[in-house]
C-alpha cells in the first residue's frame, strides 16, 4: 500500500509538469496586450512598452516559463499584474467560497442523492422511480447558467426570500453566508445530486441481484436490513468513485455559477484573470485547482481500495 502511494505520488510529478507547460503556453497564446488593463486604454505606446519590460514580457518564452516554474517550486506564485498583490494571497482569499460551494454541493449529493437513489432502486419501476429518475435526467440536462438565472429570478427577484447577490465569509456571519450560498449551491449541486442518484440506483439494483443478497433473502433477513446493510455497502463503492470523478466537473460548474452570482471564488478569479489577461493569477489559480483535482483522484483510489477489500495493490 505504501509502495503504491509513493508510486502514485511520483506519477503526479510528470503530470503536473505537463499541466504547467500546457497552461503556460496556452495562456501565452492569448491575444491582446495585458498592459491595456493595467494602464487603461488611453495610455501611450511608450508607457505600455516600458511596462511590458517591467513585467518581463520582452524576454524569451522559455525564460519566462523558467522564472515562473522556478518561483512555483520555491513556493512563490508571483504577483498579480493587475493589482500587484501576491498571487498566493489572492488564492487563499478566494478558496473559501469555492471550497464551501463544493462542500455544500457534495453534502447535498450525499443527503439527497443517495437516499433518493436508494428509494428509486427499492421502488423500481414504480411512479416514484420514474419521477426520481426523470428529475435526475432533467437536472443533468439543465445548463448551470440557465438554472442559476431561473433561481435568481424566482427566489431573489419574485419571492425575495434570499438576497440576489453578495458574499460574506462564513467566519464573519454564518447565517448570512449560508443564506447567500443556497442558490449557488443548488445550482452547482444539481448535477452532482443527479449523478449520485443515478449511480446509487444502478449500483444498488446490481447489488440486489448478486448471489449473496439472494442468500440473505433466503435466510429470511428483513429486506430493509438487507438493503441498508449488505447491498448498499457494496453499492456505495462505485458511488464514491463517481462522486470523486465529479470533483473536476464541480470545478467547471463553479466557474459559471460563481460568475453569475458574483461570488469571490476560484472560478471568478480564473475567468476574470483570463479576460483581464492577469496571467500570473490564472496560472497560479489553475495550478492549485488542477493539483487539488489530482490529489482527490489519488485519495479516491485509496478510499476505493479501503472500501473494497477485493482490490489489492
Amino acid at each position: 500500500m505504501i509502495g503504491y502511494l509513493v508510486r502514485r505520488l511520483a506519477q503526479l510529478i510528470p503530470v503536473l509538469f505537463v499541466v504547467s507547460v500546457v497552461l503556460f503556453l496556452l495562456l501565452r497564446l492569448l491575444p491582446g496586450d495585458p498592459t491595456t488593463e493595467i494602464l487603461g486604454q488611453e495610455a501611450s505606446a511608450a508607457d505600455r512598452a516600458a511596462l511590458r519590460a517591467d513585467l518581463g514580457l520582452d524576454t524569451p518564452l522559455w525564460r519566462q516559463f523558467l522564472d515562473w516554474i522556478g518561483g512555483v517550486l520555491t513556493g512563490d506564485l508571483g504577483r498579480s499584474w493587475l493589482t500587484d498583490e501576491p498571487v498566493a494571497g489572492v488564492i487563499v482569499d478566494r478558496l473559501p467560497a469555492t471550497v464551501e460551494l463544493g462542500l455544500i454541493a457534495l453534502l447535498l449529493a450525499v443527503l439527497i442523492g443517495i437516499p433518493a437513489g436508494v428509494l428509486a432502486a427499492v421502488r423500481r419501476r414504480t411512479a416514484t422511480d420514474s419521477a426520481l429518475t426523470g428529475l435526475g435526467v432533467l437536472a443533468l440536462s439543465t445548463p448551470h447558467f440557465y438554472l442559476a438565472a431561473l433561481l435568481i429570478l424566482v427566489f431573489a427577484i419574485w419571492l425575495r426570500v434570499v438576497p440576489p447577490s453578495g458574499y460574506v465569509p462564513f467566519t464573519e456571519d454564518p447565517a448570512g453566508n449560508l443564506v447567500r450560498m443556497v442558490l449557488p449551491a443548488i445550482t452547482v449541486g444539481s448535477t452532482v445530486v443527479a449523478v449520485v442518484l443515478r449511480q446509487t440506483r444502478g449500483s444498488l439494483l446490481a447489488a440486489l441481484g448478486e448471489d449473496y443478497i439472494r442468500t440473505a433473502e433466503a435466510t429470511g433477513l428483513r429486506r430493509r436490513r438487507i438493503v441498508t446493510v449488505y447491498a448498499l455497502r457494496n453499492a456505495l463503492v462505485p458511488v464514491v468513485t463517481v462522486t470523486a470523478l465529479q470533483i473536476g466537473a464541480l470545478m467547471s460548474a463553479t466557474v459559471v455559477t460563481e460568475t453569475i452570482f458574483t461570488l469571490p471564488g476560484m472560478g471568478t478569479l480564473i475567468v476574470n484573470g483570463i479576460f483581464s489577461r492577469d496571467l500570473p493569477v490564472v496560472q497560479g489559480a489553475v495550478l492549485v485547482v488542477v493539483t487539488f483535482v489530482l490529489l482527490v483522484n489519488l485519495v479516491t483510489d485509496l478510499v476505493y481500495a479501503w472500501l473494497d477489500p477485493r482490490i489489492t495493490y
Partner: protein
Amino acid sequence: MATETTTTRDARRPVLTRLLRDRRARFALPVLATVAVAAVASPLLGDRSAATDTDRLLTGPSARHLLGTDELGRDVLARIVDGAAVTLAVATVAVGLALVLGTLLGLVAGYRGGWIDALLMRTVDGLLAFPLLVLALTVVAALGPGLRNALIAIAVVATPRFARVVRGEVLSLRTREWVSAAHIVGVPTPALLRRHLLPHLAGTLGVFAALQASTAIIAEASLSFLGLGVQPPQPSWGAMVAAGTDHLDASWSLSVFPGLAILLTIAAFNLLADALRDAFDAHRPDLTPGR
C-alpha cells in the same frame, strides 16, 4: 451484472432491436432526428433568422412569429431552427473528432504500453485535471471566438476522455486469449487493432460518445453564455438563452423556447446513452454522465 434488461434473455438479440424497444431511446431518437432535420433544413429559411425589426422587439408568440421575437426583433423559431446546426456540429464534428483522436491515442497507449503509454497517459491525466470549462475557455480565448474554434476547443477537451476510456478497455481486452492468439499467428498490429479490438469497443464508445455529446452541447452553450461561442449573426441556442436571461422580465418566451430546445436535446443524448448502455450491457462507473 443484472440490471433492468436481464442479460440471459436478451443476450443474443441484436443491439438495435433492444435499443428500439427501450422507452428512453424511443423518446431520444425522434428528438435527435428533429434536431438533425432542422439543422440540415435551416438553409431553406434563407436570412429569416437574421432579419432584424426594431419595431417588434421582444414580442411574445404570435401568428406572425410563432415563438415571438428576440431583442433585435428577429424570429425566435427561425433562430432555433438555424441554431440546431451549431448544436448538431458540436455533437457530431467536435465529438466525432475527439472520438477518432481519442480512440487512436487510447489504442496506441493501451496496446503498445511502455513509455508511449506513460507519456500519453500523463498528458491525458493532466488535461483531465483541468476544469473542462476553464480549458475550453482558454482555448477559445487563445484561438479567437467563432464556431470553428469552439468546436476545436470542445474536441481538445473531450479527446483525453475518449483516450482514457479506450485505453482502459484495451488493457482489459489485450489479456484475452484470442488477442494473444491473433498476435502469435502473426496478424499485424494495425489490423489486429482494427479488426479485433475496435469492434469490441463499439458499445463502450457509443455510450461514451452520446454522453460526451451532451457534455459538449452544455460546454458550447456555456461558452456562448460567456460570449465566446459562435459569432453573430449565426444563432446558437446557448447565446439565445443567455440573451433570454438578460431580458427575462421583458419576454418570458425568449429564454424558455431555446432553453427547452437545449434541454430536450441534452436529455435526449443522456437518455440515449442510458438506453445504449443497457442495449450493449456496458455498465461502468466512468460511463456515467456528468460534466
